[in-house]
C-alpha cells in the first residue's frame, strides 16, 4: 500500500543525514509500532508519509502515487494525528461538518460510537477542552474517516489512565483488513498487545522491521528468572524479582513479547539483532 524507497533527508545541509536510505513497505491489516530514541526522526518520517514534508532523495508512494504531489486521491486516504495540535473553537458537529467532506468513507455512526467509548461529550467548543480530551476527539475522528492509512504520533501522551484502556478498545474495534495504522510511541507498555509489527528507527536507518510473531518465535522473553536460567541470555536486566531476560527460543513455545526489553536489546546490540532477523524488509 505505502512504499518508501531509499529515503534520504537532513534538516541542515552540512549536518549528518537524519534518514540515510530508508526502505519500508506498509501493508494493510496491521498495526505498526514505530519506535526510536528521542530526536531520531519518528515524527519527521510520519510527516513525510502524510505529505507534510518532502524527502531530499528517494520516494514515498501510496498506491503507486507520490505522496508529495498531495493529490486529493492520495490525501483522502491518509489521516495524521500529530503529537501536538490545536482544535478550532467550534462545536464537535461543526468540526465534523467542516472536515468529514474530505474523507469519502467517513462514518458518523462510528464517530459517535467512539465518542461514547471515550466518554466524550459533544462539546460546544473544542478549543476549550484539555489536551487529553482533544487527543480523544481527534483519534475518534481519525478512526471514523476510515482512511486506509492512519498515522498517530504519540497518541497516548496526555491521556489519563482509563483513556489508555479505552484507546486500545477503540483501536481494536476500529481496525480492519483494509486499514494500516502506524503509531509512533515511547509508551510501549500502553500498546504492547496492539502492535502487529515493530519498526525501530536508529542511526538514519531501520534497525528492525519485523512481525511480533516472528520475534516471539525466535526469542524467548522471561521474567523473574535466576542467574543460572539466564546464563545463555542475549540480553538481561536485574530486577527486584530476579532477572528479566531475552533468550534464544529453542523450545518453540512462545512467550509474551516485552517490547521495551526488545528495544533496549536492539539499541545495545544492533549487529546481533540484524543477524537474528536477517532480511527484515520484505
Amino acid at each position: 500500500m505505502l512504499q518508501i524507497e531509499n529515503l534520504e533527508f537532513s534538516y541542515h545541509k552540512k549536518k549528518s543525514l537524519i534518514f540515510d536510505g530508508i526502505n519500508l513497505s506498509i501493508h494493510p491489516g496491521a498495526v505498526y509500532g514505530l519506535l526510536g530514541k528521542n530526536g531520531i526522526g519518528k515524527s519527521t518520517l510520519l510527516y513525510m508519509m502524510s505529505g507534510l514534508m518532502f524527502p531530499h532523495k528517494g520516494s514515498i508512494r501510496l498506491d503507486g502515487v507520490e505522496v508529495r504531489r498531495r493529490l486529493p486521491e492520495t490525501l483522502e486516504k491518509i489521516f495524521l494525528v500529530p503529537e501536538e495540535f490545536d482544535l478550532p473553537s467550534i462545536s464537535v458537529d461543526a468540526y465534523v461538518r467542516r472536515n468529514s467532506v474530505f474523507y469519502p468513507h467517513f462514518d458518523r455512526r462510528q464517530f459517535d460510537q467512539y465518542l461514547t467509548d471515550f466518554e466524550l461529550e459533544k462539546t460546544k467548543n473544542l478549543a476549550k477542552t484539555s489536551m487529553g480530551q482533544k487527543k480523544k476527539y481527534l483519534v475518534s475522528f481519525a478512526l471514523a474517516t476510515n482512511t486506509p492509512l492512519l498515522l498517530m504520533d504519540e497518541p497516548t501522551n496526555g491521556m489519563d489512565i482509563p483513556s489508555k484502556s479505552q484507546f486500545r478498545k477503540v483501536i481494536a474495534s476500529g481496525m480492519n483488513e483494509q486499514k494500516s495504522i502506524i503509531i509512533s510511541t515511547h509508551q510501549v507498555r500502553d500498546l504492547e498487545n496492539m502492535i502487529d509489527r515493530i519498526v525501530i528507527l536508529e542511526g538514519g536507518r531501520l534497525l528492525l522491521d519485523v512481525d511480533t510473531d516472528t520475534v516471539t518465535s525466535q526469542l524467548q522473553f522471561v521474567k523473574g528468572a535466576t542467574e543460572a536460567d539466564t546464563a545463555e541470555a542475549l540480553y538481561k536486566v536485574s530486577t527486584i524479582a530476579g532477572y528479566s531476560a531475552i533468550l534464544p527460543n529453542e523450545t518453540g513455545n512462545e512467550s509474551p513479547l516485552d517490547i521495551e526489553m526488545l528495544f533496549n536489546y536492539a539499541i545495545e546490540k544492533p549487529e546481533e539483532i540484524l543477524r537474528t532477523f536477517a532480511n527484515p524488509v520484505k
Partner: protein
Amino acid sequence: MQFKENQTIYLQIAERISDEILLDHYAIGARIPSVREYAALVEVNANTVMRSYEFLQAQGIIFNKRGIGFFVSPDAKHKIKEYRRNEFLKNELPRFFMQLYTLRIPMEEIDSMYRKFIENLTSNLSKQQS
C-alpha cells in the same frame, strides 16, 4: 484483562474463552463474539485474537461458519478438559515429579496426602449442599 507473565497472549485468550465456555457464558452451539469484538474486549490486536480462534478451532472447541462467525462445538467442554488434561500431564507433572525427586518425597506420602485431600474436598462439598 490482566495477562500472566510467562504464557503467550494468544494462548491466554484461548484459555479465557475456554473458561467462559466451561462456565456456560457461551452455550453449546452459540455464536461467540466476532474477532474484532473480542479484541476490543481484551484490548489486544485482532490478529492475536484470530490466532486464539484458529487455535480453538484446531482443538475442535469452536467451529467456523463462513461469513457468519465462530460457534461453540457440541463437545466443546469435553475437548477443553481433554486439552487441559494433556497439557497438565505433559507440562506440569514433570515439574512436580522433579520436586518430588529432588526433595526425596516418597510417592506413598503423596498418595496418602492426596486421599486425605479428596476426603476433605468431598466432605466440604456435601456440607455445602446440606
